[in-house]
């Protein structure tokens, strides 16, 4: 059923890997602007990456539900 939703069907899953390099770079640079030592930088980067992915995933889910409702 999910696969029949237009949004999922139109999603270019093969191009989602473009997200990974950006996620890694943005998280690490952002973490490095907040801390000086490697440990806190990596911890902050991990939390930023999780937060970004969750945020984007939440928006995707909202769009998916709206598509399903309409």
């Amino acid at each position: 059923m999910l696969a029949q939703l237009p949004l999922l069907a139109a999603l270019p899953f093969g191009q989602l890997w473009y997200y990974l390099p950006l996620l890694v770079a943005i998280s690490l640079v952002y973490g490095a602007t907040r801390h000086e030592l490697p440990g806190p930088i990596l911890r902050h980067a991990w939390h930023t990456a999780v937060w970004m992915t969750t945020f984007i995933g939440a928006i995707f889910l909202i769009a998916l539900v709206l598509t399903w409702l309409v």
Partner: protein
Amino acid sequence: MNEPPKKPAIPPVESLTIDLRNPWIAGFLAWLWPGAGHLYQRRYGKGLLFMACILAIFFFGLVLGQGRVVYAMHPANQDPAVGAGFGGIFTKFAAIAPLPFWLQAGTGLPAMPAVVQRMRVKGGGQPLFNNWMAPPRTTQELNSWHRQLNQRFDMGVLYTMIAGILNFFAIWDACAGPAPSEPVDPKKKKDPKKDDPKTPEPKPAT
């Protein structure tokens, strides 16, 4: 009676001080080449981290767009009109160079061949570097790049723009040191300074 000094409830933590040397030189070097400002400040780890992350996504975007996604001049027949008011600020910038280039230029030297190409083309010469970062001659040529590269053109522009934005963060870090950080653990929200000992106090150059 002399009372013995009371032990603090929370033992003092070791703080880290950073010698920013000359923040203006560091900031300029950080713009010129991502990470160079930190290397100048002897903050080698962060310098290499910034260099690797920012240059990697800049050049990855450039390769994705086959060297065409960074250009500093509109096609000859596509000069945008300059508007008025607050929005006019953007159109004024856009009249000088395409708006994406203003962000891409944040990476410094790696984006500067586009400026060389602009000067060459404006002077009536042929572009150098096998047309890398050369501006499109006409709107039709720009459209053909979009058709040919499809989404890779957009992704290339996005990657190179984000590289420039990230370098602005790195420049700020080189000039002023790490920004005050919120503690990651919600239990530690009461006193961020005490609980995040590894966030140093930036020390201005003497």
